[in-house]
């Protein structure tokens, strides 16, 4: 029941839990009032959360309309505050991380549901949970102190041997190995549990008699997975993808520790860069006045992206459940 568990079912179809709030003549006891009061507090906190950040970002939007998306670089303390480098960095790291996580995560989920003997399932589930429980900062630490040197020593010389490597990845930009590629790799490890948790659930609820029916026609195990199970679970798998992407965009400290913290718009993965969240984390401490507002504006942008992806994911997972209900 941590963040990596799949989103709860869509409770609008209520089989469980008698909705006593809707029963006949509700007698409003203090119990009800307490519950409603807490809900109001929760709503207030959520609204305050969004509102405060938006409110604080308004000065930046007023003074520097449009430059938030601009690539003029980020000049403290008075601006202009161009956020393009952060946006690009976020996109690059998130997408590369997603690509890695989806490939490995899908193979993992398929293994758990179809290949792994039943007695190992608990072990693997625990393993995935533990992966998810590791704090972000520890991943960042490991990435910076362990992965980075290793990549410098092993991976990058190996990459160099490929024909277009330099064009694609660039020369290793920073001595200590911080780069967008490193950030992507660390991110992929962090979002893997999210993807695996949801995709595993989605795959395992594909009705078993579809599996039996396809086997009875002479299909091989892979054919069953590829032609029946995955297509049936397709919508939910997209939901898992979007949620993993949402998580990747929001990761702060790990990226801050390994990406290099350089605000340049560039597409070479071996160069250092930054993401929106990481930039806010690193710059906020020293920021004054206008810069604070600009960072809040970045925060608004981050919120929009993350919330959007989250909501899309939720809608997809709900839709997947409806698809299966018809079967």
């Amino acid at each position, binding site marked *: 029941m941590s963040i990596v568990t799949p989103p709860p079912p869509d409770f609008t179809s209520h089989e469980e839990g008698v909705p006593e709030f809707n029963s006949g003549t509700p007698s409003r006891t203090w119990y009800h009032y307490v519950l409603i009061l807490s809900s109001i507090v929760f709503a207030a906190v959520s609204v305050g959360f969004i509102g405060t950040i938006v409110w604080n970002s308004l000065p930046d939007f007023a003074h520097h309309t449009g430059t938030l998306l601009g690539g003029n670089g980020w000049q403290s303390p008075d601006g202009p505050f161009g956020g393009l480098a952060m946006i690009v960095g976020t996109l690059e790291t998130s997408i590369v991380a997603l690509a890695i996580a989806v490939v490995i995560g899908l193979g993992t989920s398929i293994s758990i549901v179809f290949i792994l*003997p*039943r007695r190992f399932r608990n072990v693997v589930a625990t393993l995935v949970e533990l992966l998810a429980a590791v704090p972000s900062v520890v991943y960042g630490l490991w990435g910076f102190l362990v992965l980075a040197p290793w990549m410098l020593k092993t991976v990058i010389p190996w990459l160099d041997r490929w024909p277009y490597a330099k064009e694609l990845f660039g020369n290793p930009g920073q001595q200590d190995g911080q780069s967008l590629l490193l950030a992507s790799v660390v991110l992929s490890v962090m979002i893997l549990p999210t993807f695996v948790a949801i995709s595993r659930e989605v795959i395992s609820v594909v*009705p078993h*008699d*579809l599996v*039996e*029916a*396809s*086997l*009875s*026609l*002479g*299909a*091989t195990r892979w*054919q069953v997975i590829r*032609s*029946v199970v995955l*297509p*049936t679970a*397709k919508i939910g798998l997209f939901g898992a993808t979007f949620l993993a992407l949402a998580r990747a965009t929001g990761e702060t400290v790990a990226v801050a520790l390994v990406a290099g913290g350089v605000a340049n718009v560039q597409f070479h993965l071996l160069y250092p860069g930054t993401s929106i969240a990481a930039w806010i984390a690193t710059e906020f401490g020293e920021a004054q006045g206008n810069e604070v507002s600009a960072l809040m504006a970045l925060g608004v942008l981050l919120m929009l992206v993350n919330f959007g992806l989250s909501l899309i994911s939720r809608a997809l997972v709900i839709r997947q459940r409806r*698809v299966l209900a*018809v*079967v």
Partner: protein
Amino acid sequence: MDQEFMAHVETKVSTPSEPLERGTAAMQLKGVAVSFHGRVAVRDCTFDVTKNRVTSLIGPSGSGKTTLLRALNRLHDLTPGAKVAGQILLEGTDIYRGDITVTELRTRVGMVFQRPNPFPTMSIYENAVSGLRFNGVKKKAILDEAAETSLKSAALWDSVQNRLKVAASNLSGGEQQRLCIARALAMDPEVLLMDEPTSALDPIATLKIEELMTELKKRVTVIIVTHNMQQAARISDDCAFLLMGEDRAGELIEFDTTEKIFNNPIDPRTLDYTLGRFG
């Protein structure tokens, strides 16, 4: 005693249309037993399934009928801890130890399940030819011909021929089940296994499928599990009666032609069952 039922049985018995001489055996079972993690679920199954006849496996619930059926296309391979003992021969070849792979076996022995289960992401056409596609058949001419033949055999062609690309979930329950029958038939198997195919359907749909059987058995050998005695009496030529013993394992009590089973069985337990004394 159920008057209507007895009338049914008498109609069946008084007009034996099947020759009492056995033809060739499509499948032979010799001492077949199935156990899960050592616990025996069904045993002592020895009988021959004759070609182009409908053989039904009947008996109260828990008697191991479905377990036995699923051994015939090696579905128990999926279940860890499942062991199938004895011999099951398909046209003389041992399906477990003989010179035949599981995938090949399943192209020759098809299966229809209790609940209609067309592949939800595929159209009617795609469902019908899914077996062929799995097996690598790509030529449109073959696929089209197989689709038409099988859908006709399942008495579905007329109602779907103009909407073959429509999603299979648009069909009613009975039509979906007939689509599943067509899907299995498209592979032109020698044997068709049916696991209580009408128990999830309404009476009209049930009747339609029962009517198919007489036509179907000209092309395939049918082995059907049914908990509905009257259905067995109506549609099958041979019956295998299974019963759960004291050790909670199902066993074959009696195997004979349907008319013998229902009219003049050897074992008193068979008589008790067919007379509805327990269910």
